[in-house]
């Protein structure tokens, strides 16, 4: 009987104290996928805090009617920078960071396919982010008007044209976002080449972890959906700097064309952002239910289906523009169609839990929060896909509540689940379960307290992006409750930060495989050595570690 050595323990490397400058150099010059992945995630979390503070300021402003906590111009900049930061500087690096860290480990590879391109991707992303924030200092340009961008995160033309957006703030918006997008594209090409080319022996596509599948399709979406935004931003920059007429309505240009290009990017972007959460759930729920994932082929099929259908639904953001009724019908129908694979996924995650031996550790709690909240987000999404319903609630707080349910209730909860789950792998220390539960419950209560009421404010007619409102329209109490919820959310985040700091210093040692998991990243040490695996693993099934732990009853006998 042939057998292949499969080391679970690694030779100890002699620890040596590194000076600060050595450590700094090691991180700045690194091409190691794990360090780059961590750098992506840490920068995303820093931007998350910045954008979260912006959101808190807005909630303070909106807590009571006729408030003057911030002035209208500042408010415009706040919601623009909040949205832009959350999407491009939090969501995108989370995608890149998680796939960078985990994909090579999960497929049994020693690094990404192009390590130097990977480092380039991170630094160009960070440069784009800094460029965007530099607008606070340099955004006045020579004309002395405006500072940070104030055109909204989708920067509708012709508001962004030179005539209406003086100064350089919109240029910073277009350039910063475009440059950080190059980083995302570089990392997406890397993820695809890595998953296709660097899988360890036996890791066929049908055995690949669902997380890797999800990130593969995610990379595909980035490659086809991000260039339309870059193209539109190039046109915008040409308009603004060279006097081109793409979105100049005075010269026959079309403002609606910007909307089309933006949302050709913008809708797939929603899936690009949510996919890491889909991936983490698909890994965590089986482990904490002690059951293989339910309907694995259907899960993968659903993700691939989303990877294509989501490219054809963009104009559901534009029902109020006045498209033909045929377009409205088409995009309403396609938007409902994309709900089907998403429904399949929710069903399969639930079915995985059904009858399982459930362990409600913190990662699993966040997964459960995701399931409930993302379900609500999906249902309001289906409602908004109905064109006449959208006409009523377009640009209202109902829409704001809907997409925050997808992006916080879905994405952020999914990412926190992932952070609690893989933190031991990345650092060798467990996060505290006690603090984790505090984090979960405070954040969950706060999130729902903030965003459930905003649905009602929206249905009562409160438009998004207003900086204040008059009393007596029935919006006061909803807004007040929403603002109080922010306190709980912030407290939850503080517990998370405290938890990370504490466990980095005093956390319980994690060992290689604290969750008794089944995928390859748990076969190496925590944290993994620079080369990941001493010998490349060989896999026979989709749960290689299960096979290892149960030699009498391995998966490959049944697959």
């Amino acid at each position, binding site marked *: *009987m*042939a*057998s*292949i*050595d*499969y*080391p*679970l*323990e690694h030779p100890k490397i002699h620890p040596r104290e590194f000076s600060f400058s050595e450590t700094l150099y090691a991180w700045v010059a690194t091409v190691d996928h794990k360090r780059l992945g961590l750098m992506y995630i840490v920068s995303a979390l820093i931007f998350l805090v910045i954008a979260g503070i912006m959101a808190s300021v807005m909630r303070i402003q909106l807590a009571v009617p006729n408030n003057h906590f911030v002035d209208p111009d500042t408010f415009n900049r706040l919601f623009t920078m909040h949205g832009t930061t959350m999407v491009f500087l939090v969501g995108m690096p989370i995608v890149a960071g998680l796939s960078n860290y985990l994909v090579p480990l999960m497929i049994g590879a020693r690094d990404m*396919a*192009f390590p130097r391109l990977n480092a380039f991707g991170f630094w160009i992303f960070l440069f784009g982010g800094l460029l965007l924030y530099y607008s606070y200092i340099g955004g006045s340009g020579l004309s002395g008007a405006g500072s940070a961008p104030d055109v909204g995160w989708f920067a509708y033309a012709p508001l962004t044209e030179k005539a209406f957006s003086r100064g350089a703030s919109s240029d910073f918006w277009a350039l910063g976002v475009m440059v950080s997008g190059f980083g995302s*594209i570089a990392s*997406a*090409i*890397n993820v*695809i*080449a*890595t998953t*296709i*080319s*660097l*899988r360890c*022996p*036996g890791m066929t596509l049908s055995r690949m972890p669902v997380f890797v599948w999800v990130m593969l399709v995610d990379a595909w979406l980035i*490659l*086809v*959906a*991000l*260039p*339309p935004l*870059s*193209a*539109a931003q*190039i*046109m915008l920059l*040409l*308009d603004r700097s*060279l*006097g*081109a*007429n*793409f979105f100049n309505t005075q*010269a*026959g*240009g*079309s403002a609606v*064309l910007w909307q089309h*290009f933006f949302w*050709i990017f913008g809708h797939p972007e929603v899936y690009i952002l949510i996919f890491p959460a889909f991936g983490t759930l698909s890994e965590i729920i089986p482990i904490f239910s002690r059951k293989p994932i339910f309907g694995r082929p259907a899960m993968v099929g659903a993700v691939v289906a989303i990877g294509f259908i989501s490219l054809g639904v963009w104009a559901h953001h534009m029902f109020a523009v006045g498209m033909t009724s045929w377009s409205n019908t088409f995009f309403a129908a396609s938007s409902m169609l994309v709900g089907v694979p998403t429904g399949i996924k929710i069903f399969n995650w639930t079915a995985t839990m059904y009858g399982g031996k459930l362990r409600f550790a913190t990662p699993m709690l966040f997964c459960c929060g995701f399931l409930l909240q993302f379900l609500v987000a999906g249902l309001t999404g289906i409602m908004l896909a109905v064109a006449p319903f959208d006409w009523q609630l377009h640009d209202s707080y109902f829409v704001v509540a809907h997409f925050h349910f997808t992006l916080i209730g879905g994405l952020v909860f999914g990412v926190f689940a992932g952070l609690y789950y893989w933190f031991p792998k990345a650092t060798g220390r467990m996060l505290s379960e006690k603090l984790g539960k505090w984090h979960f419950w405070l954040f969950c209560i706060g999130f729902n307290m903030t965003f459930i009421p905003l649905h009602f404010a929206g249905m009562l007619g409160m438009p998004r992006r207003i900086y204040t409102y008059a009393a007596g329209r029935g919006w006061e109490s909803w807004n007040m409750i929403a603002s109080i919820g922010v306190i709980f959310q912030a407290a939850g985040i503080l517990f998370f930060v405290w938890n990370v700091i504490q466990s980095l210093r005093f956390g319980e040692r994690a060992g290689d495989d604290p969750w008794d998991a089944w995928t390859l990243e748990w076969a190496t040490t925590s944290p993994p050595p620079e080369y990941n695996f001493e010998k490349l*693993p*060989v*896999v*026979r099934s989709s749960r*290689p570690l299960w*096979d*290892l732990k149960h*030699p009498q009853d*391995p998966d*490959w*006998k049944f697959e």
Partner: protein
Amino acid sequence: MAATSVVPVPPGPMEREWTTPDRGTVGIIFLIVTETALFSIFVVTYLVYIGKSLNGPYPREVLSIPIIASICLLLSSWTVYRAEHALQHNHLDRFKLWWIITILLGGEFLIATGVEWYHLITKEHFTISTNLAGSTFYSLVGLHASHVIVGLTFLLLVLIVTLAGFPIQTQFRRVRFLSWYWHFVDGIWVVVFTVVYIIGR
């Protein structure tokens, strides 16, 4: 915990030999995919704005078909293929010859574009800010020309290191990827040519 564990392998014949596609090949293919997405938006914009200009000069009045430049560029696709082929069979001199011809043909295309733009801007007063036709023309043709510049830069780089005596045969894979990129740039030109000089006029 045991120092080493053993991955069980089922009795019977081993699985088929394990091979995966070359990562460079995958990378270049998906680079081309994402570039195609970028170009398609500019092409769509061009098509949408045909006939929408509010004032002249209009494309049919000022644009003339760049036949020679187009032939040069398409020909360079063939010559770069010949060069790649020569390198594969280790004919270094033939490789250099075909490679230089490719660079000359690409350079001629670029010069022709420059001359065309100079003529349009100074004689016809047709600029990027004149009208929608100007905006779409210069952005689409310019985006393509910038890709020609990138391609030419890499072609020149290969030529320089080859002439300096670097054993370029060892980098055959990369030369092949560069030639694929060059074919892509040429293929895009067919689309741009059709849209700008045939449909657009």
